[in-house]
């Protein structure tokens, strides 16, 4: 049954994460820490006129947290800040609540819903997202 948690698309993102690396002069950035396992992720963005022009992440973590960060960058890039927040809301619901996930919004991200069955892994799936949210509140 762990095949359901570790779907192909997740393994693919965790092995070859998209948008990984650093942005030299981000307009927004924040770090996320999971003090219990030591996972850590840094999310950097360039936001211009409310639009996420560029987003990258760096850091270490398990397959779930890396894949989630990678998919997140793809999901929010080119969207407005408000849209990005909405996507996080939908995603957060999908990995914590029992309702059917909203596939139209989530696309690939829906593959992470498997963590629901592994409560201690939910934090892995949301780590980068919380960092993004914090980054959008702060400035660089």
């Amino acid at each position, binding site marked *: 049954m762990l095949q359901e948690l570790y779907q192909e698309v997740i393994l693919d993102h965790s092995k070859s994460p998209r948008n990984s690396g650093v942005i030299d002069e981000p307009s927004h950035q924040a770090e996320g820490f999971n*003090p*219990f396992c030591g996972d850590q992720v840094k999310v950097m963005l360039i936001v211009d006129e409310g639009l996420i022009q560029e987003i990258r992440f760096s850091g270490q973590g398990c397959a779930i947290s890396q894949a989630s960060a990678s998919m997140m960058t793809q999901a929010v890039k080119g969207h407005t800040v408000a849209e990005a927040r909405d996507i996080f809301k939908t995603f957060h619901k999908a990995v914590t609540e029992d309702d059917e996930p909203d596939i139209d919004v989530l696309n690939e991200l829906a593959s992470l819903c498997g963590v629901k069955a592994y409560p*201690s892994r939910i934090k892995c799936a949301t780590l980068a997202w919380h960092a993004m949210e914090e980054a959008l509140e702060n400035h660089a």
Partner: protein
Amino acid sequence: MSLPSSIRCQFPALQQEVNGRPLVYLDSAATSQKPQRVIDAVSNFYETSCANVNRGAYELGRRSTNLYEGARTLLQEFIGAEHSEEIIFTKGCTEAINLAANSWSAEYLEYEDVILVSEMEHHANIVPWQMAAERHGARVIPIPVTFDCEIDLDQFESLLREEPVKMVAVKHICNATGTINPIEQIATMAKEAGSAVMIDGAQGLAHQRVSVKDLPIDFYAMASHKAYGPMGIGALYGKREVLRELPPYQGGGDMIRAVSFEDTTYRKPPGRFEAGTQNPADAAGFAEALRFISEVGVEALHQHETEIRIAAEKMLQDAGADIVGSPKEKAGIISFVLPRIHPHDFSTFSDQLGAAIRTGHHCCMPLMSSLGLPGTARVSLAAYNSIEDLNVLIEAIESARRIFA
């Protein structure tokens, strides 16, 4: 009595004899006896869910984390706090006050500032403030207590006017005299004068309902073992905005965000204040105790204890005892003295008859000296007591009087 006498059957320790007589436990303000369900909750933790919390990579860890965080939420609801992160688990009420005195003072206390501490405080709500005052060059000034054993509100008001008061530390219920302090009024006065407020709730938890979100206080300190729960755990309630600004107290695992030799950063509350391995075993027991209290009802407990207290005061007075203090609002605690019989001698007589009472200064030395007493004998009541328990005490008084009169 307003509570069914069957409640007593739930307490295994009360089913025994002591010195050939049925145990009569009249020292619940020191520590309450525990119902079987609380004892079982602790054993059950060790038998099924024993693991560290917050490390939930495996099933037992998830169970212990759920029990621990479940206890936090339960306590939050029980005392009417707005957020679960306002509840910090400690090893007891004393540690809760030390934590607050330490972290709050580090952030706010300055040279020559004043901390007002009532004269009736337990040493646990005096000494930590004296220590903090010494570290920061501040002053601890007593709020006088009236002859009735109430906080003197007039004098309190003038102390607030004259001094740059930063902290007012007062107990909810007095463990020595039973006085229920008007904490809402005291806190409101303190806040108007710009002071922070610590309420020592050690004797409050199982005896008076509180809704901390409606009180203008910063801290409320509690002990599980005085509220039918296990020893080894207590809690500090702190308002969210207050806790957020405070530095950590103890350092170690679980309270950090990241550690390095260059720069260590800390978690948000409550984690920041909970260093080291947590105690989910006793948290589970504490939660079960809160369920027990909720099922019986805090109001029903207070009424039960009040009925016994009033009858007991009369019996004691008829037997020649002087009751110490006559506050308007009083919990199920009676301090008394016997002419020509030192309390310590008396306790040996009551012990011989199987009755457990407390004698001495009840960790309230300043109160005792302000009352001019070397100490008192104290009866403190809980769910399992009945007025029959007092008969033994009267018997002990008579037998002591035969020797000392």
